[in-house]
Structure formats: C-alpha cells, structure tokens
C-alpha cells in the first residue's frame, strides 16, 4: 500500500477523527441538526486542517520544540479566521446558523492533533494529503450524523442547501415525510449523542464483519493435511 493510500484509509475509516479518535465532538454534536449545517462545518474544518497541516509541515524545521504548541495554535487560529471571514462574505446565512462553532474550530482537537502527530514530522505533500483525508473523514461523519438527525427530527433532507450552495440548490430539499410535531429528541443534543453511539456501533459491526470475512478467506487457503507418520501405536 502506498503512503497515500494508507493515509486515505486511515483518515476516512481506520483512524477516523470522529468515529475512532472521538475528537472534535463538541462541534460534531452541536451543529449536526441538519445535513447542510454538518456539511458546512465539515468543509470549514477541512479547509482549516488542510491549511494548518501545510503550514505546520513547512515550518516544522524552524519551530523550536519547546514552544511548538502555541505556534501551532496560532497557525490554526489564523486559518480559522480566514475561513470565518470567507464564510461571512460568501455564505452569510450559514455563517449565522453555525454561529460560535466556526471560531470554535480553533479548539477542535482533531486539528491540533494532526499538526502535532503528523504534519510536524512529515513532508508537505504528505501532510497536505493527510489533512485533506482527515477532514474528509470528519466531514463524512458530520454529514451522515446530520442526515440521521434531520431525517428523524424533521423528516427532510438537505434543508437549507441554498445557504451553502446558492439559490439554485433550493430544489435539492427532499421531503421524506411531513410532520406537525418534529421528533425533538433527534434535534436536541441528546439525540446527537444517541445517533453518534449508533454510528460508532455500526462501524464496529462492519469492522468485525470484514475481519470475519478475511479470516474465513485465510482459513480457506490453508490446506488441511492429515499426516500419519508412525503406525506403532
């Protein structure tokens, strides 16, 4: 497996920041009431991860080891500010909907975790790819969690797609069922915890299934041979 393939598998599945490392749970649980909120925050986080990983990797040889953490935090804060201003300019309504959770990306442990664990030790290309894949894994979980909660809570999918993608996306909204009394549990934070638990359980179940499959395949390859050596029992 090449380094890049390994990074993709690690970021999206094996070492997924949200499902396996359980990092950045605060924004994960707080903003995923709808798919679009989740996607918006996911993209913002990915951009910050990409930027911070590249920068940290570039400066990794100049940063004194003793003060690396404050420097990483400042780099991350700079990128968060850039993303925040960009969102304020181009997707203002989404910016308002996500509120405090955009500046809070600074405190997302997944980002400083990648800077510390990977970007500060590897080449720029690899660090950038790692940031992209980790961000993608995080975004995927945010979107799936948002879809679960939006479907259970409001009975819709992709409400407010126009906030992120522009006016043409208004028609993207899918109404699965209409209800006068939304299922508030799914929309409130406890529902996020429940859905998150279910997602992690589902991932573990899939992992176990895959493991069983591969074991069975291995066993099938081993040829059973009964060898009789001695006859004088």
């Amino acid at each position, binding site marked *: 497996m090449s380094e890049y393939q390994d990074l993709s598998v690690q970021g999206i599945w094996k070492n997924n920041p949200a499902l396996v490392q359980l990092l950045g749970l605060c924004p994960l649980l707080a903003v995923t009431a709808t798919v679009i909120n989740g996607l918006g925050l996911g993209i913002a986080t990915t951009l910050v991860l990409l930027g911070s990983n590249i920068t940290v990797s570039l400066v990794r040889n100049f940063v004194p080891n003793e003060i690396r953490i404050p420097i990483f935090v400042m780099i991350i804060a700079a990128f968060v500010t850039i993303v925040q201003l960009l969102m304020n300019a181009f997707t203002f309504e989404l910016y308002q909907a996500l509120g405090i959770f955009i500046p809070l990306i600074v405190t997302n442990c997944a980002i400083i975790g990648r800077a510390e664990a990977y970007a500060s030790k590897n080449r720029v290309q690899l660090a950038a790819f790692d940031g992209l894949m980790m961000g993608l894994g995080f975004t995927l979980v945010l979107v799936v969690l948002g879809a679960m909660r939006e479907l259970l809570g409001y009975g819709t999918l992709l409400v407010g797609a126009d906030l992120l993608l522009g006016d043409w996306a208004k028609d993207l909204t899918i109404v699965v069922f209409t209800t006068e*009394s939304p*299922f*508030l*549990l*799914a929309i*409130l934070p*406890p529902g996020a915890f*429940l859905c998150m638990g279910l997602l992690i359980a589902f991932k573990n179940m899939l992992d176990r299934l895959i493991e069983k499959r591969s074991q069975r395949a291995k066993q099938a390859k081993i040829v059973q041979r009964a060898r009789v050596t001695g006859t004088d029992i």
Partner: protein
Amino acid sequence: MTMLSLSSSPHHHNRRDIGQVMRLVCYATIPGILANVWFFGFGILIQVVLAVITALVTEGVIMELRKKKTERVLKDYSAVLAALLLAISIPPLAPWWVIVIGTFFSIAVVKQLYGGLGYNMFNPAMAGYVMLLISFPMQMTSWLPPLSIAEQSHSLWDAIHTIFTGFTSTGFSVEQLKVGVDGTTMATPLDEVKTALLQGYTVTEAKSHIMFDGNYGKGWLWVAMAYLLGGLFLIKTKVINWHIPGSMLASAALLSLFLFLLDGDQYASPLFHLFNGSLIVGAFFIATDPVSASTTSKGRIIFGAAIGLWVIIIRNWGGYPDAIAFAVLIMNMAVPLIDYYTQPRTYGHKTKASKDS
C-alpha cells in the same frame, strides 16, 4: 431443558421465576387501570394494548437479531411490564405513534442495546417517558379532565378514533375534550397549582378550581388509591420490599411537610403531593424495578428516599409539574455508587467498626 447461567439482577431466591414476578406486578396495576378507565375514559386501555404489542414485536425482533432464545425471553414478561408502565404514564388520548415510538425506544434502546433484561442501567419505562416528554411536549401534556367535569364525554369507540385519527367519531379534537364544564381547558392538578403559583396565586386559591375536591384532584385521588391497593398487594406477596416505596413516600412527605410549614401559601401540603400526580405509582411500581434499582436493603432505603426528595424538589422548583421519571433516572445513575457503599457484611466477616476496636 435446564439452563444454568450466571445472570445479573433481578435475583429471586424463591420458587417464583422472573415471568411470574413480572406477571404479578402486571396484575397489581389492574385496580389502578380500572379506576383510570372509570374516571378518565377508555383511552388508557388502548394505550396498554398498543404498548404491549409494540414491546413484544420489538423484543422479539431484537432477540432474533441477537440470535437468542426468543420465546424464553418473551415469556419473562419484563417487556410487557415496561410497556404497561409506560402506557399508564402517558396521557390516555395521546396519538398512537407516541406510545409506539416510546415503547420502541424503551425496549430497543434503553433495554436491549444495553444487553437486555438485567443489564439495563436505566428504568426502561421512565427513560421512554422522558424521551417522549422532551420530544413531544404538546401530546405528552394533553391530559383529560375527569369525565364527571368534562364538557364532552367520550365512548370506547371515541377513544379508539381519537388515538388513531386525532378526532372523536363526532369530530371533537383532543383540545376540545380537554375543556371542562366551566368552559376552560383543564390541566392536571399538579400543573394547575404550578401555573397558579407562577401567576402569583396561593396554593389555597389554586385549589378552589373546579377540578379539586378539597386537597385532591377529582378522580386522581381514587386512581392513586387504586394503585396504592395494588402496591400493598405486591408488598404482601413479597414481590417487592417495603424499603423503596416506604422511604420514597416518607421522604417526599417529610420534605413537603417542612416546606408546607415554612410557607403554606407557596408550598402544597404533604397529602396534596402524595395523592396527586404519579407519586404512588412511582413508589410502588416504577422505582421498585429490580434491575435498575439498588439491590441492598440499606441501599434501597437511600435510593427511595433520594427519589422522594428529588420529586418534591423538581415539583416545587423545576420546569415540569411532575417529576417521577426524572427523579428515578437521576437515582438510577447513582445506583452503582449506592450499592458500592451499602454492601452488607458477609457472614463470618467483621464489620469495619468492630475491626478497628
């Protein structure tokens, strides 16, 4: 076939198996349910049927998925009891999907995801109730006035019709059924007093409302009495111990008496608290759940007493008029701690105090 397995609580060291115990508790709710039918109409019966069916289907499907002995588990009646307790806790004319979602959540998430009977940390019925209460506040607070003071009466057919379509066969909505003879929308006695207190009235002024008969809500007193009867039957047959209900009612009564003596205008009397709302049902049927309650005698007294305190605290200063479900869930969380500190001395070992001397 005999099955020897190491199991978590409930442990019962007598001839009854779990199924028999659970069934006895189900039977003991019958007087209360009958009283409820008499005073509030047939809705509760339909809720019970819906809940039991949902519980059995959910439990059966999950048992099949987990590849366990479905029949053996279904026959222990624990799912039926949880469903029954949830059904008697919700408003009698709540829409059908409310009880179905609630029972599914109770059985699938609260009970089976934790590993099934004996492994659930929280009381399934109450966790389901709280889930419904925060998810569907409107449906979950649509309590009916007793039939004697309701403007519209409703028959069994009306109850079925309302639960499934939202309207009686003659076209009245639940909102209209909630209207009393005085033309105002009725609430529960606890809700009425809470609202009145918030508006600056005293407890005595609140109790001058048509729904009250002296200290107690019309109908509610008799329902509570009927559940008390069932609860005493359970203690008599040793299905439950006196510890939890006794300490729970005593602590609730003591705290409410203290507050009542402090300021009788702001805090209702102990008798009001005991026989309105679901304190009696909670004490005898819900808090005594053998799985999620404390398992030591001393622990049970602490468990019950703490629930009683929480109930009075939440009723007086919380956002919701009644509090059994919240109180029970809070104390469910404390059960491991309580059990840890109340381990009885094992036979032949010295107590800590005698060891030191």
